[in-house]
């Protein structure tokens, strides 16, 4: 084991989110202890007061909705070697990045006393504010995928991640295809693999939280959705649940 002062420093930061990605890191359990052998955690507000030390690698969860969050990211960017977006909110804005034009009205309805005076912008991905070295998608992130990527980053190498559809993982598990045999609107054919096909394995079509892989053919899947009887509005709503901003 290396001495504590020689370990790379890891910071975990939470922007506008449910905190699920950092919670998933605490769920690593035994692997968390292995990770703590390799790195020194210098910031984690959920479980400890901040140490004030700058990290080498920053993992950032959540979307950017506040001016303060954007300012924080700009400062953080200057200090760290790797800035990594973790979770779908940090990667794309996530499930909350909906209705950009309706947002002002929503704020007025939910917070009638303050309304628009309540400063809260349309949820943006971290990469809208500062350059991001790497993105780890998922709602929430997958522990195995995260550890795989950290393994690369700790050696100073940009991680290799699956660039093929979720369907590959579904086939390897021997699942029945929900799209073909049950007529369910599964986003598996266009979604990056990496979760082990969690939803189809328990009988639910993929909602696409990992986002698109590089060669994803959205047009072809849209045509299949039409064939299984989905209207244009329903198709749009399938894609904008997680896969893209709506």
């Amino acid at each position, binding site marked *: 084991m290396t001495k504590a002062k020689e370990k790379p420093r890891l910071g975990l930061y*939470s922007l*506008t*989110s*449910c*905190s*699920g*990605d950092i*919670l*998933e890191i*605490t*769920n690593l*359990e035994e692997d968390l202890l292995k990770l703590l052998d390799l790195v020194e955690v210098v910031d984690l*507000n*959920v*479980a*400890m*007061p*901040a140490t004030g030390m700058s990290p080498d690698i920053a993992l950032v969860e959540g979307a950017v*909705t*506040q001016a303060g*969050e954007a300012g924080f990211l700009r400062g953080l960017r200057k200090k760290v070697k790797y800035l990594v977006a973790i979770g779908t909110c940090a990667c794309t804005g*996530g*499930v*909350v990045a*909906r*209705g950009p034009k*309706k*947002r002002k009205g*929503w*704020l007025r*309805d*939910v*917070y009638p*006393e*303050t309304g628009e005076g*309540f400063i*809260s912008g349309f*949820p943006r991905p971290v990469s809208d504010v500062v350059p991001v070295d790497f993105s780890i998608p998922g*709602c*929430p992130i997958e522990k195995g995928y995260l550890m795989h990527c950290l393994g690369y980053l700790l050696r100073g190498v940009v991680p290799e991640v699956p660039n093929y559809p979720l369907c590959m993982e579904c086939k390897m598990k021997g*699942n*029945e295809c929900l799209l073909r045999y049950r007529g369910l609107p599964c986003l598996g054919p266009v979604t990056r693999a990496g979760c082990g096909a*969690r*939803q*189809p*394995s*328990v*009988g*639910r079509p993929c*909602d696409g939280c990992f986002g698109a892989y590089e060669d994803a053919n959205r047009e072809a899947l849209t045509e299949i959705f039409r064939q299984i009887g989905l209207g244009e509005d*329903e198709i749009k*709503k399938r894609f904008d*649940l997680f896969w893209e901003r709506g």
Partner: protein
Amino acid sequence: MKKELISRVEGHGSIGLKIKGSRVESVELDILTPPRLFEKLIVGRHFNDVPTIVSRICSICSASHRVISVMAIEDAFGVKVPREAVLLRELLLHAETLESHGLHLFLLALPDYYGYGSFVDMARDLPDAASLGFKVKGIGNRMQECVGGRAIHQITPVVGGMSAGPSSEGLKRIQQEAAPLIDEVLRFLSKEIPTLQYTPLVGVSNWVSLAGRDYGYTGGDILVNGKEKVPVRDFYQKFHESALPPSYTKHTLYGEEPFMVGALPRILNSGSKLKGSAGALLKRLGIMKSRSTYMNNMAQGVEILFSLERVVEIIGDLLDIDLPEGQDGGITAEFSPVAATGTAAIEAPRGMLIHTYTFDEKGYVTGGDITTPTAMNLSDMERTLMIMAEALIKDTTDIKPALETLVRAYDPCISCSVHIVRL
């Protein structure tokens, strides 16, 4: 006094105090997790997408949000859910309680009792406390994975029932792990845990929980102070949200008064129904008599035992039924959407949680309301913070640790405060 972030709570919050000389003028607890407008995000969505969206309100309570949104939709459509699916959902809620209480009691709150800054410091001297926390949290996570399909943002609870059955292998493993853990937790919590020096200062004034026939996390009417019953659908008539000056924060009040929800109110309302080791620990700790707000932590300990015992029991029942597993294991009732409003309440780890939705005849959402336990507790947190600050300000210069400890005793889950902020 400068507002500073509170550590060891989920999400971001800060306490603001206005002090003049040795007088506390006001206390303000700010929820800094920005608004995400979930109640609006679901409008226009198909009912099937609602549980998926609202479970993202909070990662710690995602199972509660998912299950209660499904139940509120079922209330609107008049769906009768098969018994096996009801049992599986109950198992999922116990799993979440174990994960949440395990994390909060052992890793976030106990460091206060033993005088450490974090569980990492505590673990050096008291490895048992930290490792027991990880064990309880771990079994909760593995159960959520086994029954819900994922430890966070569970997948299987769907309108009508469950989309898949858990593997019987997985259930057996959990049952084997849970049984010895009951003794281990009972032994640890039965020995002396130091009391906080400021314990007698603040107590519960009004307490609210769901109270059904048995001690449980679903079903029954809302029970106030052990006597007044309020049917769940009348929640909005008896409980009000209002902004109290000088704070802009939105508060939920019972009539005009603050109230507390969570483990302690559940114990005060229904603790007499607890049997087994949970009942034994409850007697030993004297929670029913003390009514100190800090007892919420120990009440979580009692509930860890209750949940572990129930888990062993439920899995026993489920293993007797030959449940189909995985993709083929869907257990759902037939139903059709109707234009209607549905309301349901559940005891999430942090207290009562209520979801209400209105649908059009095709099953698309036209309106929704979500009231979370942290929103309900906010007024009571400010009430007790005021009492505490006034009592300590005279002879203590640094009252911040005491106030932070008090906030943590409530186990606030600040990211789930969907609509309580007035900044």
